């Protein structure tokens, strides 16, 4: 059901944690109870560091981890452009009923970047 990429991200949990003094966002999925938090630091218009925390299914966890990898050193504008489809491609796909994990991660990213000028 889950791609090797998703399974590896869940097992290894890269970039899990919190960042003091970071911008953060929190999104929840009331249907299945998943919670995803994203923390990121922006320096000179670029994402310098990011972390995620998640309670939820492999889709939510993997998507949270993947987003932190995808935005590494990206400009705010480039990070803001990351779409659900791009995230799904990075994850090598998710089962249809798990797509909400990727949607949550992109929503968290956009919330965290609100207010940052490109």
């Amino acid at each position, binding site marked *: 059901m889950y791609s090797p990429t998703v399974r590896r991200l869940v097992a290894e949990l890269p970039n*899990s944690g919190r960042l003091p003094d970071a911008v953060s966002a929190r999104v929840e999925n009331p249907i299945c109870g998943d919670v995803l938090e994203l923390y990121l630091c922006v320096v000179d218009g670029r994402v310098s560091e990011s972390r995620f925390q*998640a*309670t939820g299914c492999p889709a939510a966890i993997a998507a949270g981890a993947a987003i932190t990898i995808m935005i590494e050193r990206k400009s705010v504008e480039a990070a803001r452009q990351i779409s659900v489809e791009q995230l799904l491609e990075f994850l090598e796909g998710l089962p249809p*009923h798990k797509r909400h994990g990727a949607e949550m991660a992109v929503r968290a990213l956009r919330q965290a970047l609100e207010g940052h000028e490109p």
Partner: protein
Amino acid sequence: MRRVYFDNNATTAVDPQVFEAMKPFFLEDFGNASSIHAFGQRARAVLEEARRQVAALVGAQPQEIVFTSGGTESDNTALRGVASYLRERGNHIITTAIEHPAILRTCEQLEKEGFEITYVPAGKDGIIKLDVLEAAIKDQTILISVMYINNETGTIQPLARIGELAKSRKIIFHTDAVQAVGKIPLDVKQLGVDLLSLSSHKLHGPKGIGALYVRRGVRFNPLILGGPHERSRRAGTENVPGVIGLGKACELARQGLADFDMRVRGLRDRLENAVLETIPDSSVNGSRTERAPHVTNLSFRGTEGEALLISLDFQGIAVSTGSACSSGSLEPSHVLRALGISSDLIHGSIRFSLSRMNTEEDVDYALEVLPKTIDRMREMSPLYRER
């Protein structure tokens, strides 16, 4: 990396002796058991010997065993076969809220066909409420179906009492004993059941074969029609290698029942007790007393079962979960929900189901890996942080 299989309620490894017993019946003794020539008669003879082996495990007579393709077919046959046969007598069936989907989906279909189904609830301990069952019986009740051991929690239902009740009211009584056969001593006469479903791949036999015990004198409309196989109770050329495998698996299970209870129960108890002692915010789901010797269903607050499952799998340990995320429909385990367990604990539930092939070293490894895995999941869990 060590590989540990703790998902025996899903399926079991075929015992090497079972595999050896089956092998000749693919390439050499491949006859159709209905053929008159020597090839067929050889197949017939071994098939009937296997029938005796299955019957012996459950305390039945050989002629009371009907071979099927597995537990699901046996359940469908029992429910649909009896319901249609006794339709003119009544249209009410009593079952439970914690049955396997093979029973529940069949009951839902029967409801669409005009049958009335009562789903008896279970208590927090996972034992069904007998008073509710008894109160549900009415003149139109033609069938009671209650599983013997629950596949998710291992809870054992009081079948003998239900059997007495069914007999006193002249109601046909079926049990889905798929998770019980070969795990605990079982006698169909002592339980008072009229029909019993069992499945080979739950007791170290091959997949794709099972049986339905049908007490002598009980009639039903067959599900699978065609030739006169199985005394016209289940058509289709017999899966001789599968039947041989099932028979051998039953023979080995019967010989190993005492050891299973002592040794496997010991492994399960050690695993469970150590988890409860060393991992905070962990709990057992269902009764810890009225329970099969090999199952423990544990919840770990602040975690999610499917993510735990993948993390454990990466470290070589195979388990199962009742988390909503693991079902295709995002619905949590209907069994754990029926026990009144809270959503967050269902979310973080893991089922460990052991077998006679597990060892002390397997448990040692699990106890080394599990606490660290739970800790990692909780460290990154907002909900555990905020509990």
